[in-house]
């Protein structure tokens, strides 16, 4: 089996703190992998290691057979794109120019300007920002900026997309728009690793889920394998109930009162 993204026994220490502790992950192409877990579980650290921002203390990562800690920025930019969970940006450029910056790694590719334009347009359409094209980035709301950031990442056209909370500022309608856009990219063979806070969003749209807890993988598998009442209640220290989604073939996670008994 070919793997698009592979992590082998990755550990990352900062000082005496172990932020990621022996995590392994292997993803075949065209899948959406959701990473969930409580605050401080190591989700962002793991994603940044895959992106090449951080070098693991031990273990190794591979993205499209490239070692992110050794590859040059431009080599990496051709195989993976990355959306960081940023606040409001001071970027003075217009929306369309910002999305087009995602094409930077391919500026010397043998394709004409029309094709770059078409890729940029299609990425903007997927995240519903085509109508904002001429607006200045710093004048947008945080949710609009997030969708533009996502369009930029999609326009980069890489086989692997890494996303850190791409829906944190989005309304519920745009959350679904974005997850649908990710699914259609995955159907075309793109591998997506996405950190999500919203467990139900992850449950509804991921092929596989990794639940991180205190730097370790508490479980990895399909949403219904990973998301069980007992496991979630213990990892989040909050009683939860998992039921079948009445309208979708996926689990639905509900919080319950602290003194409620767990089935």
């Amino acid at each position: 089996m070919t793997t698009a993204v592979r992590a082998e026994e990755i550990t990352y220490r900062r000082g005496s703190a172990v932020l990621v502790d022996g995590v392994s992950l292997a993803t075949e192409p065209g899948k959406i992998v959701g990473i969930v877990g409580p605050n401080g579980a190591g989700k962002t650290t793991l994603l940044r290691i895959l992106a090449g921002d951080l070098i693991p203390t031990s273990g190794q990562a591979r993205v499209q057979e490239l070692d992110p800690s050794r590859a040059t920025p431009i080599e990496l930019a051709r195989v993976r794109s990355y959306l960081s969970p940023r606040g409001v940006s001071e970027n003075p450029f217009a929306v369309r120019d910002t999305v087009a910056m995602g094409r930077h790694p391919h500026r010397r590719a043998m394709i004409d300007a029309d094709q770059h334009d078409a890729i940029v347009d299609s990425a903007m359409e997927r995240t519903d920002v085509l109508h904002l094209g001429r607006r200045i980035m710093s004048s947008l709301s945080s949710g609009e900026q997030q969708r533009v950031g996502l369009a930029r990442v999609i326009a980069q056209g890489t086989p692997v997309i890494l996303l850190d909370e791409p829906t944190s500022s989005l309304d519920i309608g745009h959350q679904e728009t974005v997850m649908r856009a990710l699914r259609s990219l995955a159907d075309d063979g793109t591998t997506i690793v996405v950190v999500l806070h919203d467990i139900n969003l992850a449950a509804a749209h991921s092929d596989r889920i990794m639940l991180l807890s205190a730097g370790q993988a508490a479980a990895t598998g399909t949403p219904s394998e990973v998301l069980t009442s007992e496991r979630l209640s213990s990892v989040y220290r909050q009683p939860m109930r998992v039921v079948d989604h009445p309208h979708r073939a996926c689990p639905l996670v509900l919080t319950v009162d602290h003194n409620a008994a767990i089935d």
Partner: protein
Amino acid sequence: MTGLAIEPDRRFSPATALAGLSVGLLALAMAGLLSGAVAIGPSDLLHMIGRRLGLTSDAERLTDSVLWAIRLPRVLSGAAVGAGLAVAGTALQGTFRNQMADPSLVGISPAAGLGAVAGIALTPAGGTPILMMLGAAIAGAGAALFMRRIAGRVIESNQFILVGLALGLAMLAWLGTIVLAWDSPRVPTFTFWVFGGLAGSTWKTLAVGAPVVLVGIAMVAGSARSLDLLALGEVEARHVGLDVDRVITVILIGVGLAVGGAVGLGGAIGFVGLVAPLVLRRWIGPAHRWLIPASALGGGAAVVAIDTLARTVASPVEIPVGLLTAILGAPVFIWFLMRAGRSYS
């Protein structure tokens, strides 16, 4: 969000703006050549040019030497100084994503002054100002790279500016101490290092200073696309494939050369690097492939014009050019910031 900023005030296309700025620079340079204590008219200018090109064998006029030996090197120095400072300001604002990043405010000009004095100390009497310009460029680049380290450690942009101010004031204090204690006729006065002045412009200083400024500008201009990508943020720029550390080092060395050459030629002149990018970004947009040449032309035009004022407005007394750039630049800066503040509130 109600119909906020759709694009900058694109009253001109970038190409039109560059053409207009070029014409403005030429016109202001012409005005500078023709103004001053000795009355000189356009025919005198043509006469001087004709004689220099060997087109006329008329007898030399007094105005020829005033134009050739005094005013022309001074106007050209003003253009080089303004271009260097404005391009440095544009590069710093783009690199640090901070509209307050200006060579004077973040300590680069005072550091260049200190480097220039060190260079003078190493130059034998009567030597060319090469070591002075190089000293200024090296110290300027050093200060810029130091500020880059600071930017990596502070979270808030106002802390960055505060560190720059502290660095600048310390450099200025060292500079003042050394200049006053040394008290040598070879070193320009403290006023020159604080408020600038182009009265000492000669072909000799221009021949060294202008190339230093031009190399600095070329290094920044060659990084125009990288500066655009840095608007995404350093981390994001790296994610789209930019070798961030390398390009920022190149840009900041370019800044050091541009500021070093400018300070060597004209001392510390404030507000040009702050205001020129602010105004021009508004006019022609944020794309650096236009903004950098526009800054060079606009900054050059501004300093040439203000220097003409500096030597004529209170003639025969000459006002230090940096005082006038502050008197004129501060209101423009405040007005632009308040306008920007309104559109974001």
